[in-house]
């Protein structure tokens, strides 16, 4: 026996490690709607396998918890069992010697609180509240419900124009989403169980790039009804698009000089090239939509006038006001809001940051957009200041990494304290209070707290505040529209405003700042409900036939990720950063799709929504 040995994992252990990774991916690919009690039981059984076996509460207690929950699922006990489960779990939390037992029992307690209804339904009615409403994970998670397996199959057959047509059934902005969608669809892709989620957005980008100009379908017979859309962003234009297809007369009022909303005045062109945006908007307008830009409803024309003039109104004014930090010195010259800066850029009025030190406050996608724009506008140094850690940023990680690659400094755990101005009232520096990361909040994000360290001075010529946007509600209160606390308009999930007949609202102005695809989804819902309100039942469908699925290839394979232009080159211009897929890449990537519209539950129910 040697005194010390080098640790080498055995073969079994190596396989188990691999199984852990597989399980992790598998859990990530869980479809929405599963019975939470059943899932809790199975998680608990996994915990049971992890117990070291030394202590009573963990070794025996977890087993007894598992037995009791199984009885609940079998519909045997009465409601009293819930008290016993709770008591047992609490004792395990209180008495287990280490985290293996404590945390496992904590999961059970969380579930008892979090989904008590499910427990009770099983006990009282021997029924389950879980159900698979939409069995295709990507479609279920796309706010607009785009037929993703359908268009991927079309791409696989090289029918990119048909792919665009099919997407337009649910989303009139295939190009915008191809470039800048946050792709919630990829989160639970079933392919995760085999290797990795499909690069859905990448494939869509390939389709729109290849398809070129795809003519729009014909509008239905004119109905004689007129709708005004207030706000020509993605949501407003989506509503306009479908309402025009349904045969209604649509007029869009836009406050800014050009249409596009945050796609133009929020998202920089290096992420979404302007000419692509312009072409997509032109294509939508080709349906015969009337547009008035530079018209501020409330100032140039009153809300009530529009209400009288049109049969129906859709409010999609977005969230375009900036939020202030409220710190001392914020009114100094050289402090700008991200919203303002990006609006200028959107109108091609480029500020010059040549040679400047720029500090950006915030950790969201907008903070990254202004950080990377500032670099392109000639800044010498751009520092992004955030009060939590990099992994806590709400910006997409690839955005943060992209900014860093382009030379941005990311200074984390620094809370803005005050802004120092020089004698002319011009920004001189940003003072921050260093933070220490602390306890988790309810959503599981750790809170920062003041660190026992002296404040930090960050010299700056320009400070850009990117801590969120608000909704411009001035002028709306008087019209009788209900404003919620926090400034958002009150509308229900059908986009209908309470107590106001014929007025609908959706997108950022209802949800607060969100994503393009959520605004599109709201516009789509509004179009359907407005059509219904106007007394029609037009159905939107696509003539494109989705190819019959063939046997899928289940051999694990890498995911084709997007490549980007060299950081040192791209940081000098506003041209598109991301490179599209090659034919070969698109062919391979599309073949990874598991066609959940057909295989599994899809062929039985909910695999395809042909029309809405």
């Amino acid at each position, binding site marked *: 026996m040697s005194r010390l040995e080098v640790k080498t994992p055995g073969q079994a252990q190596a396989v188990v490690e691999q199984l852990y990774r597989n399980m992790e991916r598998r859990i990530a690919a869980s479809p929405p709607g*599963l019975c939470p009690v059943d899932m809790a039981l199975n998680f608990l059984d996994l915990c049971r396998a992890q117990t070291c076996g030394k202590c009573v509460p963990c070794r025996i207690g977890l087993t007894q918890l598992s037995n009791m929950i199984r009885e609940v699922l079998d519909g045997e006990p009465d409601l009293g069992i819930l008290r016993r489960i709770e008591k047992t779990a609490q004792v395990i939390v209180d008495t287990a010697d280490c985290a293996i037992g404590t945390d496992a029992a904590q999961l059970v307690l969380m579930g008892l609180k979090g989904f008590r209804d499910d427990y009770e339904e099983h006990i009282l009615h021997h029924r389950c509240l879980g159900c698979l409403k939409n069995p295709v994970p990507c479609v279920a998670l796309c706010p607009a419900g785009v037929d993703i397996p359908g268009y991927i199959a079309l791409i696989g057959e090289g029918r990119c124009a048909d792919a665009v047509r099919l997407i337009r059934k649910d989303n009139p902005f295939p190009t915008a989403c191809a470039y800048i969608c946050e792709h919630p669809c990829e989160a639970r892709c079933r392919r995760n169980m085999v290797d990795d989620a499909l690069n859905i957005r990448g494939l869509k980008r390939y389709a729109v790039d290849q398809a070129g100009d795809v003519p729009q379908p014909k509008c239905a017979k004119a109905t004689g009804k007129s709708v005004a859309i207030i706000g020509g962003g993605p949501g407003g234009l989506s509503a306009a698009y479908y309402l025009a297809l349904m045969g209604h007369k649509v007029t869009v009022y836009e406050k800014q000089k050009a249409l596009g909303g945050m796609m133009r005045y929020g998202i920089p062109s290096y992420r979404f090239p302007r000419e692509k945006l312009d072409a997509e908007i032109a294509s939508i307008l080709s349906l015969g939509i009337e547009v008035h830009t530079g018209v501020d409803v409330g100032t140039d024309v009153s809300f009530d006038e529009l209400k009288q003039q049109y049969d129906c109104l859709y409010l999609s004014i977005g969230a375009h006001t900036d939020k202030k930090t409220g710190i001392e010195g914020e009114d100094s010259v050289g402090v700008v809001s991200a919203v303002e800066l990006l609006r200028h850029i959107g109108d091609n009025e480029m500020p010059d940051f040549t040679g400047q030190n720029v500090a950006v406050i915030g950790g969201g996608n907008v903070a990254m957009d202004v950080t990377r724009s500032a670099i392109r506008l000639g800044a010498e140094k751009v520092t992004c200041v955030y009060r939590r850690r990099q992994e806590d940023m709400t910006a997409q990680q690839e955005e943060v990494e992209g900014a860093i690659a382009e030379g941005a400094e990311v200074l984390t755990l620094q809370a803005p304290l005050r802004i120092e101005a020089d004698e002319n009232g011009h920004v001189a520096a940003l003072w921050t209070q260093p933070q220490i990361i602390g306890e988790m909040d309810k959503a599981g994000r750790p809170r920062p707290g003041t660190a026992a360290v002296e404040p930090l001075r960050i010299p700056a010529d320009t400070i850009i505040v990117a801590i969120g946007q608000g909704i411009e509600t001035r002028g709306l209160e008087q019209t009788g529209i209900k404003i919620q606390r926090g400034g958002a308009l009150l509308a229900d999930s059908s986009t209908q405003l309470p107590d106001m007949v014929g007025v609908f609202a959706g997108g950022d102005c209802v949800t607060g700042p969100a994503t393009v695809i959520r605004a599109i989804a709201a516009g789509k819902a509004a179009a359907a409900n407005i059509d219904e309100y106007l007394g029609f039942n037009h159905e939107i469908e696509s003539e494109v036939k989705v190819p019959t699925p063939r046997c899928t290839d289940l051999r694990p394979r890498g995911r084709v990720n997007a490549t980007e232009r060299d950081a040192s080159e791209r940081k000098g211009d506003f041209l598109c950063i991301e490179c599209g897929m090659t034919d070969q890449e698109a062919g391979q990537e599309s073949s990874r799709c598991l066609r959940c519209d057909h295989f599994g539950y899809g062929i*039985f129910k909910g695999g395809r929504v042909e029309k809405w």
Partner: protein
Amino acid sequence: MVNFTINGRELTAPKGATILNAAEKAGIPIPHLCYLKDLNEIAACRMCMVEVEGTDRLVPACNTEILEGMVIHTNSPRVRDARKTNLRLILSQHNSNCTVCVRSGYCELQKLSHDLNIHYQPYPVQPERAQVDLSVPIVREASKCIKCMRCVQVCDKIQGMNIWDVAGTGSRTTVDVSYNRYLKNTDCVFCGQCVTHCPTGALTVRDDTTKVLRALADPEITTVIQVAPAVRVAWAEVFSLPAKQATTGRMVAALKRIGFDYVFDTNFAADLTIMEEGSEFIDRFTHRGKYRWPMFTSCCPGWVRFLKTQYPAYTDHLSTAKSPQQMFGAVAKSYFAEKMGLDPKKIFVASIMPCSAKKAESELPTMRDACGDPDVDVVLTTREMCRLFRSDCIIPADLEEAEFDSPLGTGTGAAVVFGATGGVMDAALRSAYYLVTGKNPDADAFRAVRGEKPWKEAAFSIPGAGDVRVAVVSGLGNTRRLMDAIEEGTVDYDFVEVMACPGGCAGGGGQPIRGGQEYAGQRGSQLWKLDAGSEIRFSHENPDVQALYRTYLKKPLGERSHHLLHTDHGAWSAGETAQREAEQDW
């Protein structure tokens, strides 16, 4: 066309054909369990797995399209193993108490298990546990359900009622009433299409034979049985009788053997229905402004329940005439009792119906008009009748033909077609024509309403009354489309016949089950043949019906008719409405 090889044979199939269909066409059957053509091609049971060369895994034949050059093996060692293992897995959750299962002998699972030579089970058997509700005619035994989803599909796609659904998630997934409801609280019309498409005994129509046997055993009781038109063209399928022996006379003989005191014919009541409903239509048609249009037939209880729950605003469009079954019961416990000097309380009226909804109809509070007791005491399905024959060891082939008894045993050609889609309309028009003109039309003048098409339209001119625009529809999915069209005003009719089951009663939920296959068309054409061969083809010429009017009812729509033969469809509530009312009572 595509070329392919299957079990070494080189064959061709049309493009787009599935492996299962192409193989079957070539005389190579592939076992399957959940599959129903066009209705349920979901590859859930994995019985139809086959090996395709060049593909790693086995593929389901039922929904895999055949491709050029495919080389397929349907009986390779891998396929054999896969089929047996998957069948054993199904059986491990199935209550295989075949000896006491109503489906024994015509259960698709039992047959497949036998065919695949399954004679031991390595897995412990743990069927699902759940309670059985006998308060409604449709009974589900969870322990026998194999989750093939046929019931869900037939209810969604054919009947459009969405009563069944998948319930629960994960390995506890099962089939149950949708939205966690109980069947009695839903708008289920009890058509029984889920039952006739169920491969096992999981869905059955409640067995009421014991009630009949109890009545037969009571010497104080006079037992009367009526047999619906569609029963006579289907019952013999159960005994595999050749067409020549599959006669109404043998069925009557068998019923007499069982011991019923009187074996009568619902056809008699169908002719009576035509007299009432035809007169009612003419009365409404000649006083157009007083009524809302169109008028609907009311003889199908599934349809009546459908209209009352799905389109309640249209309830008073229904003819107030009762269905033949209920007219029969009311007449048996009044006219017949009086004529025979019997106490109606001591008459037990049973029906043999091709239908499960008739059971619910007979239990309605409004169907007690003759003496206060239910006019029809119990309803058996065609299948239950056949089970009675079997349990009495009756061999129908050996029986001498017998006649229905008098005075409620005669029926015309116009009555027998009640069992086929279009039949009620055809019969009603024949007599309506006579009632207006005093002359018989050609008995085949209205043939445009016949045939299997699910939604038929026609217009006929009745001299003296005008042009009558009619529609005939069967299947509730089709019916919903027709109702929506009426609501939207895209169609306009005077008289509409609706049957809840596709093809009419011939395809009813109480008829013999033949592996989920549709036999309504075949049985329907038998009925039209019986009509064509009848001596009398007009309801108003039925001599016993004429006698009934002469001696008892006096005239159609008269006072006695009103009391016995008509009903207020608004006087009872069904389904979710009934449930809501019950809750409010609390």
